[in-house]
């Protein structure tokens, strides 16, 4: 198994900002880079009559190999291998102060597929035609944007592209080297575990590994080739509870490469556990509305933070749009105006540090050195001792942020890049021993005059909720006038005053956002590492969207004073008329 290699080759040290030459052997020997360098030189000269000229050109190729295996009840549904190269061509016209992006007319230009052969002529021809089309479309976009801006009373004067230092970093290309048959066997065995779970109506186990080399060349002198790898095993199972409500269980194990995934035996065990947990959920009573202390234990705490912080720690700007067009609703960060203000208890800090490869021996999937825009990843203190200090940023300037800190990791809207966390560390200076957290929850429940407190062990994050569940949830939120909430609990327990636990199902959070983190009352002394696939969609819905990256949250268990949850309002259907077919035992 190939490891991510940290040393830079051929062109000198890491993040070398010195000028490079296209004749350098490392570039000459890489056909994809050479084709991009050579065609980019021509693209810079594009100009149509007196229309705007390009001031910034960036080419990228994601050269990816992917293996995907899907299995259910011991049978393989899909097992595929694919190799593809997708280009990304960016031709910005105008100037960094005012260009064709950041308006409702702007889009991200990605062009079909490139040849998978290292054929210089064919690659250059594709970039030639692609750049021509993107340039023409950019000139159209900037004209529309200018026209819209002319009609606006007040136009945001923030520039459209922040400056960045040219970066040179050539790492060895990534290659896929795993045994597909071996994983097929693992998945057959793991998925067959569900044959012993009679109430599970549907289940599958999926393995995916993507080994990608990301190459970028731009007109500022940046040139790099870095690995962008992702591997995961996910287990999904659903069942109908006796009242006709659908219940589900979802587990994801995420690593950068297949080597960092759990062993076959561990995957089988996880499948067994997923089935058993779902069986318990089917039998669990439906919870009534709850308002009181909630202990987010370990994984649930990290999931809660991943879900609430994602859009609180980046700023997004409103695109230029014709007046009253109402076409650009962006949900603003709840912390947008909080820099310098207290957003958390003073004993809590939040730091994003993409450069950490592991935490106490556990691999961090949010590790990277260079972001998608060729900006070196930086450690960013977001909240220091409870006070908001800054935001994650891409090269899209937003009011107070003039420069990228290397977090442009997913395609955003309006031709820009979205800032996405790498490794998010939640650090507490006051800690309660992990094994005392439950007792603290009971104390709080007692003090509030409740018969029990609520302990959450896992949230539906990334969400595997079905379409009907999401629609029903949307209706319930709308009814309550709620614009932001948190992924529903998958495993929530009533903790009675005598300490015994009772699993309950069917709870949804009411209003919940990063604002509620002020109510964190206690943090444990045991951090949990959550590695997850981040696609930027609402609830980080599993497998939504076209692009994904990996992030990590490292957080201890958290106890919140008061959280409101409501019983899910569903209209369950009748159970099937025909009983499920009997399952045959499988080895």
């Amino acid at each position, binding site marked *: 198994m190939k490891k991510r290699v940290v040393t830079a080759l051929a062109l000198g040290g890491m993040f070398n900002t010195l000028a490079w030459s296209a004749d350098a052997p490392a570039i000459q020997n890489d056909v994809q880079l050479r084709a991009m360098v050579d065609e980019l030189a021509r693209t810079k000269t594009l100009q149509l009559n007196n229309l705007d000229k390009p001031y910034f050109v960036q080419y990228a190729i994601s050269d990816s190999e992917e293996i995907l295996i899907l299995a259910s009840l011991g049978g393989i549904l*899909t097992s595929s291998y694919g190799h*593809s190269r997708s280009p990304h061509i960016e031709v910005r016209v105008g100037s960094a102060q005012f260009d064709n992006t950041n308006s409702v007319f702007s889009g991200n230009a990605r062009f079909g597929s490139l*040849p998978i052969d290292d054929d210089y*002529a064919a690659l250059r021809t594709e970039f030639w035609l692609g750049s021509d089309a993107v340039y023409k479309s950019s000139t159209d976009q900037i004209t529309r944007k200018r026209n819209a801006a002319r009609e606006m009373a007040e136009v945001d004067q923030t520039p459209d592209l922040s400056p960045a230092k040219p970066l040179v970093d050539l790492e060895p290309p990534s290659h896929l080297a795993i045994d597909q048959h071996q994983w097929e066997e693992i998945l057959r065995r793991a998925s067959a575990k569900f044959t012993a779970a009679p109430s599970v*109506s549907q289940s599958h186990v999926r393995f995916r590994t993507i080994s990608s080399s990301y190459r970028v060349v731009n007109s500022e002198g940046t040139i790099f080739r870095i690995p962008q790898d992702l591997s995961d095993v996910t287990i999904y199972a659903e069942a109908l509870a006796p009242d006709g409500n659908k219940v589900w269980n979802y587990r994801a194990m995420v690593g950068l490469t297949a080597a960092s995934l759990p062993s076959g035996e561990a995957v089988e065990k996880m499948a067994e556990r997923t089935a058993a947990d779902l069986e318990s959920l089917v039998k669990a009573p439906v919870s009534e509305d709850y308002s009181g202390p909630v202990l987010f234990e370990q994984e649930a705490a990290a999931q809660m933070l991943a879900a609430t912080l994602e859009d609180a720690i980046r700023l997004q700007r409103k695109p230029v749009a014709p007046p009253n067009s109402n076409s650009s609703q962006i949900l603003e960060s709840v912390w947008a105006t909080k820099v310098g203000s207290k957003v958390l208890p003073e004993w809590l800090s939040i730091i994003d540090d993409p450069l950490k490869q592991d935490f106490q021996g556990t691999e961090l999937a949010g590790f990277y050195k260079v972001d998608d825009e060729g900006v070196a990843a930086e450690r960013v203190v977001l909240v220091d001792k409870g006070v908001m200090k800054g935001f994650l940023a891409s090269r899209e300037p937003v009011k107070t942020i003039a420069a990228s800190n290397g977090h442009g990791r997913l395609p955003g809207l309006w031709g820009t890049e979205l800032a996405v966390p790498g490794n998010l560390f939640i650090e507490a200076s006051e800690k309660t021993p992990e094994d005392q957290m439950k007792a603290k929850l009971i104390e709080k429940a007692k003090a509030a005059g409740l018969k029990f407190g609520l302990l959450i062990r896992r949230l539906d994050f990334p969400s595997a909720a079905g379409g009907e569940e999401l629609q029903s949830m949307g209706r319930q939120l709308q009814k309550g006038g709620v614009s932001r909430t948190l992924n529903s609990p998958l495993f929530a327990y009533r903790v009675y005053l005598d300490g015994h636990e009772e699993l309950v199902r069917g709870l949804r959070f009411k209003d919940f956002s990063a604002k509620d983190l002020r109510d964190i009352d206690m943090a444990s002394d045991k951090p949990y590492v959550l590695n997850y696939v981040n696609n930027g969609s609402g609830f980080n819905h599993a497998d939504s969207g076209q692009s994904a990256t990996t992030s990590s949250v490292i957080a201890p268990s958290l106890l919140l004073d008061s959280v409101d949850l409501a019983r899910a309002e569903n209209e369950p259907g009748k159970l099937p*008329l025909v009983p499920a077919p009997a399952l045959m035992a499988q080895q």
Partner: protein
Amino acid sequence: MIPHLRLLAAPRPCLLLAVCILAGSWTFAKAHATNGTKIGLLDIVTDELNREFSALKAKGDPPPYYMAYEVTEEQSTTESATLGALISDSQSRTRGFDTTIRIGSPAFDNYHPYKDSRIQFTHFAQISLDDNPNEIRRSLWVETDRVYRGASRRLLQIKTDQQLLADDKEKNADFSVDPAVKYVRDPEQFHVNREDWAKRVRQWSGEFKSHEKILSSGVEFEARRNLVTFVNTEGSAIQTGSNLFRIVMQAEALASDGMSVADFDSIEAADPAHLPSDKVVMDRVKVLAKKVDDLVVAPPAEPIVCPAILSGRASAVFFHEIFGHRVEGHRQKDISEGQTFTKMLGTKVLPDFISVTFDATRENYKGNDLIGHYDYDDEGVKARPVKVVEDGVLKTFLLSRSPVGEFKESNGHGRRQPGFEVVSRQSNLLVESTKSVSSKELRARLIEEIKKQNKPYGLYFEEVSSGYTTTGRRGLQAFTVVPLVVYRVFADGRPDELIRGVDIVGTPLASFQKILATSDKAEVFNGYCGAESGSVPVSAVSPAILVSEIETQKKQNAQEKQPLLPRPEFK
């Protein structure tokens, strides 16, 4: 719904260049044994069908009277290249099934047409590639429950709704009685050497490198093997399948006025041994490239009404569109349809020297494999030749198990793409003529006609890419075929002149009457036809036809600007 015929690959650059790259390996093809005993797919599906049917008959309200499962496995290998470089090298294997549940009675069931209400119960649900009984039974169960709910909902709804109609004209029964069939034929398995084919498509596509004007081009090879397992509650059990090997080449360029010009060529075979030699393919690539070069500099067409010859391939598409779609049985029942031919049985609909047969049993025509061939249709009905028009007189329709008037039984034309509901569709359309002359003579007749009508020129349609026809009442009941290669033919002996940007327009009934004669040599067009039941492979075989009058319109011109920079030059 607008039925349309298209090529195996439409001449749009994005289609060939943006092929899905996800590939598969089917190294796990051997059935996965469970507890030492191997249970075949047919047994697994039959067992679950019987279990579901008896339970639903006992408990369902309303109960079903018929059920069927159709499992389709598709294995495919694709190698495609542009400018000598491989773009896609992929293999895939998928297996899924369609579910049919009929509730009520054959006289009136959940498939009963009602106004424009769309009938769609099935969806292609993926199942295990291994013959794994646990997974397959569970999937069948989940999907059967879903389909049963939808089917019973629609039946109850239309039972009420049709009472609210002023006059429910649809008196035909909804389901015919056809015999149960047992049939097993394993289609031959050919070895496809991916490296060899990758090498070939690289070499062929590299030819376009020397054609500077061609902006987008490609050559694709695809090998596809389909395996179908069909079972129904009448006792039918069918396992059959087909092989398709195809080579598609296409090229596109921009004329100086920004009009896109394109041409394509394709070769299809059911056996790789029937494919032409590498050299023949290369020659066809060269001819194609040259043709696109010529189209770039060809003058644009002007709208005209004039006599014309349609080549065999062009008239095959013409017949498929303007005739074939209108004899599909279900269109005679659907009140929203134009029903051009519904009440014309026994009357003349084509010139009396023309007969049309749909023959799915026909595997090839003079050495050309016909991709519209199949043994059994998607309702388990045996394929048979159906003479729809004899000496110009309409005799019958293409029928699925949905009866139309006096025709109470299917004639084996119930077809679908997996995931769609079956309707009557075309298979291999064969046009026969008793008024055929040599090609030379046909051309002489064209010139005669140009002179007679005192037209500046006539037209020769050599190649068409696709067409579409609207059969519904809502739109104009017209047809369009999209010609790719058209020549002006002059009466004064000047050489033919290639033109670009021609569209044929016209209305169906009028067009049939204008066929004056045909050539004595038929040509084959293989393509994919899209309509209500998805995309299905079809063939049409026709001689060239001479028509006294054809109306053309100017093709839409996107006025796309040429690339600003010249093509990059390489040492």
